[in-house]
């Protein structure tokens, strides 16, 4: 589980770049941006140039094949400053193609995903709550290909994406009639509209109105494949959340060491010391769970579902607690728009429920473990 030399270098590089290029002011600038797409294309180009877009792409297709644990290191550093980027969404498209794409599909999409010229995303949910098994969007055989009808919302980074991996229902009936389609976002019949959200991201509504795609757009696998892909989404998002809560905690700790009230540094008050110690302990549990989930992806471990749900549930619980305490412990200043605490709170709210909230994953973990 210890990091190898390449990973240590990657982490250091990411930490430095994020601090210099994507401080929280960068996220803040994207809030009011008219017609924003939820990330900064210039920054994306730099990330691609550093090879981050290719971290999980095989070398044959232009990537470095460093693995998901390495991707997690970068996502964690991005999370620290709430840096808005479609890096995870795009990586999930890579995962879909690696897991379920044939050679032709991989050759068509992976080089562009690796060099950042193509941004990918995963279009799975259709309503306010994460419920992949409730997919209603239909894929109907037509000619040699498929016709897609239905709605996806929210699609993460949906306004920035060029390629969507779409979860569709191919027939009526059981749970295993789900399938994945790789759909170019400029396909005829697909309209998309931005969702103005509390954080700096811009997810989208995708409306599929008789969208026709060729037979080569369908990936292999059914519900289990959707789950495998979603578990990567959960592990990856957990890594970003780990970075968020680590920074939120450190910023708060720093405030406790500098803010004076009643003639004392507030960090000298025992009630706050113990609260900080308890949060630090939660942070430790969460880090372990997140790192284990990322490693389970790379190891193709059987217990990935359990580990992914553990990571996302704990990340949700701990980020919830720490981001709320970040506001509380900053007091009045933490309630103002100009302070970062509110940005962490808002992004936390989104990340907590994305790809299944803590309750969803506690329930899932419980079922997987016979409770």
């Amino acid at each position, binding site marked *: 589980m210890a990091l190898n030399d390449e990973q240590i270098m990657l982490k250091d590089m990411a930490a430095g770049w994020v601090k210099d290029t994507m401080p929280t002011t960068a996220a803040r600038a994207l809030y009011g941006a008219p017609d924003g797409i939820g990330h900064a294309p210039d920054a994306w180009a730099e990330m691609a140039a550093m090879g981050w877009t290719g971290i999980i792409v095989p070398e044959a297709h232009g990537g470095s094949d460093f693995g998901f644990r390495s991707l997690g290191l970068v996502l964690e550093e991005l999370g620290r400053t709430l840096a808005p980027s479609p890096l995870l969404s795009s990586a999930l498209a890579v995962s879909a193609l690696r897991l379920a794409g044939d050679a032709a599909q991989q050759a068509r999409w992976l080089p562009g995903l690796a060099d950042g010229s193509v941004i990918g995303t995963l279009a799975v949910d259709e309503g*306010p709550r994460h419920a992949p098994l409730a997919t209603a969007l239909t894929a109907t055989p037509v000619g040699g290909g498929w016709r897609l009808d239905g709605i996806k919302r*929210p699609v993460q980074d949906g306004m920035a994406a060029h390629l969507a991996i779409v979860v569709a229902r191919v027939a009526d009936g059981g749970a295993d009639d789900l399938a994945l389609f790789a759909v170019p976002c400029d396909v005829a019949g697909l309209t998309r509209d931005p969702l103005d959200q509390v954080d700096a991201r811009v997810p989208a509504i995708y409306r599929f109105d008789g969208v026709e795609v060729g037979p080569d757009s369908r990936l292999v696998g059914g519900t289990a494949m959707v789950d495998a892909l979603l578990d990567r989404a959960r592990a990856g998002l957990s890594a970003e959340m780990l970075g968020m809560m680590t920074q939120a905690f450190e910023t708060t700790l720093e405030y406790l060491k500098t803010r*004076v009230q*009643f*003639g004392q540094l507030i960090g000298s008050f025992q009630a706050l010391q113990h609260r900080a110690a308890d949060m630090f302990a939660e942070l430790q549990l969460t880090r372990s769970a997140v790192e284990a989930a990322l490693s389970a992806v790379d190891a193709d471990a059987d217990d990935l579902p359990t580990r992914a749900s553990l990571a996302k549930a704990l990340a949700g619980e701990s980020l919830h607690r720490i981001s709320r305490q970040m506001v509380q412990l900053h007091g009045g200043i933490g*309630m103002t728009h100009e302070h970062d605490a509110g940005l962490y709170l808002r992004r936390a709210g*989104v990340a907590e*429920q994305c790809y299944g*909230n803590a309750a969803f994953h506690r329930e899932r973990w419980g079922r997987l473990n016979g409770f």
Partner: protein
Amino acid sequence: MADHDSTALQDFRQEVRSWLAENFPAELKGVDGTIYQSNVHTAAADPTYQLWRERFASVGWGVPTWPVRYGGAGLGTEEAVIIGEELARAGAFNPIRSFGVMMLGPTLLEYGTEEQKQTHLPYIADHTRRWCQGFSEPGAGSDLASLQTKCTDMGDHWLVSGQKIWTSGADQADWCFCLVRTDTSRKQGGISFLLIDMKSPGVEARPIVLISGVTHFCEVFFTDVKVPKENLVGEVNGGWTVAKRLLQFERDSLSGVRSGLGSLAPLAHQYVGTDAEGRIADSDLRGRMIHNAMRASAYAATLERFRDEAGEGRGPSNGVSVLKNLWSGIAQERAELEVEILGSQGLGWGDDSYADEERAITRHWLHSKAYSIYGGSYEVQNNITAKRSLGLPDA
């Protein structure tokens, strides 16, 4: 409640009921009166509200327990409760709720000179003069007593310079009741309580944008502001005593708010769905909703019990710190549950993809984080409870 009325109270209730039937404008029925309280422009622009305010002020029921000579109705606590109950029954609201009514008025009644009472109370009673509270400063949040706003005795007037923050509604207020430092050699003992006209030269209020997007609070800058000598309340350097009393009234008013909130079950049925037995489908969420609702129910019973136990005519008690923390915890948890129920629909900000009701829930969620900060933080309230109610020793 009504069952227990004495004959005299029954008569009074009937009188209020009849008066409301005649005087409360039907157009305002069911309207949330707080919109007029929070926005002076809305209030000024609405002639029906102004009519209602004037009528209500004419009988003194905005401040029913105040003496008639200061614009009140000279009534007892039981009558005041009846007025509140009958307002609710009629779908009406009290148009005269304000900082002035809740905090400054009771304080002036106790500590003000006769001249101060006559100068200010009637305009609080008819809600024609709005007040804001200049207590907090950037360097003194929960630690109020370390405030620095300088007040110098210039012989025929006071000269005030400094900065206040978290001044609710300062940009809409006519006057400000302020804590200022008149002696730098002592901490609590160097503070005075001053009334400042916001139209005085050198006063500037700048709104602060909050994480929920609203601008309820301001920074207020005082630059060499001249204040008449007679605007001092209490003794010079005796402001801390006055302020402590006023803060008790504040906690009193805060602890009672929002005790009755509707069930979240219908919202969950709509967004989460139900299982075969009709229960909210997400059992984990359901369990936490039930727990929160049970605590809210016990909180309502606690408010009632405290009121019963305190009986008539009591001043504020230390129990309000307990109530404030219970309430803020329950209300914040409820706001979190609302957002969780709505899922991604609970996280919208500024466009047409979210219903107004959804966006209101989002904003309220963000705003609710203030409940455990403003009006005495959770930590300060627990310090008060530990020391005053439980008698635990200082370090």
